[in-house]
C-alpha cells in the first residue's frame, strides 16, 4: 500500500524572522516571573498569582501517565520574549514552496500574508478594523489578554484561574506563572456574534503564543464561535507550548471553540482547556491535532446547570515520530445534562494516536446521557493506536455509552473504488476524507476545504 504519502509534515513550516526587543533568557526563576509581571505593568494580584503558580510548578511532579515527557528540559526554554510591534518580513522573501503550498491549499491572500508574518499588511488591517467596528457596536470585547488585564481588570480578576486553578496540573501552573498573550472574549447578554472570531484578526498581538492564556465569557443567551490556529503549518522556535483556555458559558448561551493545530514537529503541545456550562448552555469543542511532536490535550466541559450540553469532536493525525494523546473530559454535575464525544484518529509511519477520556456522572446528575465514539484508522504496520476511556457512574438514572473501533483501510473497499476508475491515491484520499468527514463538516467551510486539499496534496506526495 502506498499510504506513505499522506503526510502533514513540517516540511512546509517556516520561521519568521524575529526582531526581539527583549528576551528573558533561558530558564525560569522567581525573579524572572517578577520581571515579566513588572514589564507588563500588571496589578499586584496578578503578580501574586504568578508567584503562587511558580512555587507550585517547582514542587509539582511531572504527570506519571500519558505521553513521554522526559525529554523536556525546563532550563533550556525561553519563557518570555517581547517582540517588536510590527514585523517587517516581506512576502517576496518567503521560499517558493511555502507560497505554492498556500496557493494550492487555497489560503486567501490576506491570510497568506498574515501567516507569513507580513502583519503590517494593508488588506488585513482593513478586515480587522471592520470586524472590530461591528463587534464594538454590539458591546463585544475581543482583544488580547494583556490588553484585557489593563482595560478590564475587574472582569479578568473575576474569572481568571477560577475554572483552571494553577494547582490543577504542572503545566497549568507553568502557564499561570509565565503567561503572555492569548485572547480575551466577552459577549454581553443576548448578543449573538454571527461571524466566527478568529485569532488572526487580532493583529495587535502575536496570535500564536507560547504560553497563551485565553478567557471567553458568554453571558446569558449569547452565542459565539471562536477559532484558533490554522491549517497551514506553524513554525515554533521554542519546543514547549503550554496554553490554558477557560470558557464560561452562562444560562442558555452557546460557545463553539474550534482549534486546528499544526505546530512543527519539534513542539511539545501541552494544553489545558476547560469550559463551564450553566443551565441549558451548550459548549462545543472542535479539536484537530495535526502537528507537534507530542500533544496532550483533553478539552473538558463541566456541566454545572440543568439541561447543559457538551460536545467534543476531534481529529488526531499522528505521523512519523508523533504522539497525539488527545481526548475529552465530561463531568456531569447537574440533572438532565448530556454530552457527546466523537473522536477520529489516524496513525501512520510509526505515529501513535491515543484517545484518553474521562466521563464522570455525579450522584445528583439524574437523567443524564453520555455518548462516546472513538474510531481509529491505522495506515501501516509500524503505527499504533490506543484508547484509554474511563467512565465513572455514580447515578442510577443516567445512560452512558462508549464504543471504539480500530481498523485499517480495507483492501476490498479500495478495490471497489479503483474498479470504478479511481487511482489508488484518489481512492485512499477519498477514504481518509470520508473517515474524518463527520468532524470536518463541523468546521467552517474555508477550513474544511483547506483540510481536504491538504490531505489530497499529501497523498500525491508532491508540493510546489
Amino acid at each position, binding site marked *: 500500500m502506498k499510504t506513505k504519502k499522506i503526510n502533514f509534515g513540517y516540511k512546509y513550516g517556516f520561521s519568521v524572522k524575529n526582531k526581539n526587543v527583549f528576551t528573558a533568557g533561558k530558564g525560569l526563576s522567581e525573579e524572572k516571573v517578577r520581571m515579566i509581571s513588572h514589564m507588563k505593568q500588571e496589578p499586584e494580584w496578578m503578580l501574586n498569582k504568578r508567584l503562587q503558580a511558580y512555587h507550585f510548578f517547582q514542587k509539582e511532579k511531572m504527570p506519571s501517565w500519558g505521553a513521554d515527557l522526559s525529554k523536556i528540559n525546563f532550563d533550556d526554554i525561553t519563557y518570555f520574549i517581547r517582540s517588536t510591534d510590527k514585523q517587517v518580513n516581506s512576502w517576496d522573501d518567503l521560499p517558493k514552496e511555502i507560497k505554492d503550498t498556500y496557493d494550492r491549499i487555497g489560503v486567501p491572500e490576506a491570510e497568506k500574508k498574515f501567516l507569513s508574518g507580513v502583519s503590517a499588511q494593508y488588506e488585513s488591517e482593513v478586515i480587522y478594523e471592520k470586524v472590530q467596528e461591528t463587534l464594538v457596536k454590539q458591546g463585544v470585547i475581543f482583544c488580547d489578554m494583556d490588553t484585557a488585564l489593563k482595560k478590564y481588570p475587574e472582569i479578568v480578576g473575576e474569572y481568571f484561574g477560577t475554572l483552571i486553578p494553577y494547582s490543577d496540573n504542572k503545566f497549568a501552573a507553568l502557564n499561570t506563572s509565565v503567561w503572555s498573550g492569548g485572547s480575551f472574549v466577552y459577549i454581553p447578554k443576548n448578543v449573538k456574534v454571527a461571524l466566527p472570531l478568529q485569532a488572526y484578526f487580532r493583529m495587535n498581538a502575536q496570535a500564536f503564543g507560547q504560553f497563551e492564556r485565553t478567557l471567553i465569557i458568554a453571558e446569558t443567551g449569547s452565542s459565539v464561535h471562536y477559532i484558533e490556529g490554522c491549517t497551514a503549518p506553524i513554525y515554533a522556535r521554542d519546543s514547549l507550548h503550554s496554553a490554558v483556555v477557560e470558557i464560561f458559558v452562562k444560562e442558555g448561551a452557546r460557545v463553539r471553540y474550534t482549534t486546528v493545530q499544526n505546530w512543527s514537529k519539534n513542539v511539545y503541545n501541552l494544553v489545558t482547556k476547560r469550559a463551564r456550562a450553566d443551565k441549558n448552555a451548550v459548549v462545543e469543542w472542535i479539536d484537530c491535532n495535526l502537528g507537534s511532536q507530542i500533544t496532550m490535550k483533553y478539552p473538558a466541559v463541566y456541566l454545572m446547570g440543568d439541561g447543559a450540553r457538551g460536545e467534543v469532536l476531534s481529529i488526531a493525525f499522528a505521523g512519523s515520530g508523533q504522539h497525539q494523546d488527545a481526548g475529552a473530559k465530561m463531568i456531569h454535575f447537574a440533572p438532565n445534562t448530556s454530552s457527546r464525544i466523537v473522536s477520529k484518529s489516524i496513525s501512520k509511519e510509526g505515529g501513535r494516536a491515543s484517545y484518553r477520556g474521562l466521563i464522570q456522572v455525579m*450522584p445528583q446528575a439524574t437523567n443524564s446521557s453520555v455518548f462516546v465514539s472513538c474510531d*481509529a484508522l*491505522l*495506515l*501501516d*504496520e509500524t*503505527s*499504533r*493506536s*490506543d*484508547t*484509554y*476511556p*474511563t*467512565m*465513572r*457512574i*455514580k*447515578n*442510577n*438514572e*443516567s*445512560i*452512558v*455509552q*462508549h*464504543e*471504539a*473501533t*480500530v*481498523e*485499517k483501510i480495507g483492501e476490498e473497499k479500495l478495490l471497489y473504488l479503483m474498479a470504478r476508475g479511481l487511482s489508488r491515491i484518489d481512492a485512499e484520499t477519498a477514504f481518509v476524507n470520508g473517515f474524518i468527514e463527520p468532524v470536518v463538516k463541523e468546521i467552517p467551510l474555508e477550513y474544511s476545504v483547506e483540510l481536504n486539499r491538504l490531505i489530497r496534496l499529501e497523498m500525491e506526495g508532491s508540493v510546489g
Partner: protein
Amino acid sequence: MKTTFIQIARENSYLVIDTPGKYVVFFSNISGTVSCRIAAEHVELYLVGLYDMKKNEKYSIRTEQIHVAPCSFSDLYILSVADNSSSLNFSGLIRIEKKAQQSHAYQKNQNLILSPSAFVSSSPILEILADDVFCTHGSTSGPISKPQLSYLQMRGLSLQEATTLSVAGFKQLVYDRLEKLKSTSYKIHTCSTLKK
C-alpha cells in the same frame, strides 16, 4: 478440537495460551487480575464475567487480552448488576503486539445500575500496535429501560416483579452465552495472507 472450560475462582490468574483451540474462561464476583496471553495462532478465547452485586460488595477487576501471536481471536463479555451501595471497578485491556497481525479482539461491558448509591467505573482500553487487525470495544451503563418496565407493568406485573424479571433476563444473557459456547464448535481461523 475440544473446548477447554476454565472457571476462575481465585484472585490474580495469569493464563498463557500456547496451543490452538477454543477456550472459555468464566469468572463471577471476584477481584484481582485475569490476564490472558495469547501466544499461539488459531486460538479462540472467550472471557465471560458476571457481577451480581448487593449490599456493600465492592469488586475491582482487571482483565487483559494480550495477543502476541497472529491470527487469533478473543472476546470479553462482562455484565454487572449493581444494587444497594455496591461498586464495581472494571478495567480491561486489549493489547495487540506488532507480530499479532490478523487478530480479532472484542470487548463488551454492560452495567445495570439499580440503586442511587451504587457506583460503576468502566475503563475499556485498547493498545493496538499492528495494523491488520479488527478490534472494538463497547461499554454501556444505565438503569433498566423505562419502556421495558412499562411494557411489563401493562401486562399486569408490579414494578417490583417487572424489575426482578428484567434483572433476571439481563443475567440470563451470560448463561445463554455460556450455553451457546458449549454447543458451538471451534471455528478454524484462516490466515491466508499473513505478512512476513
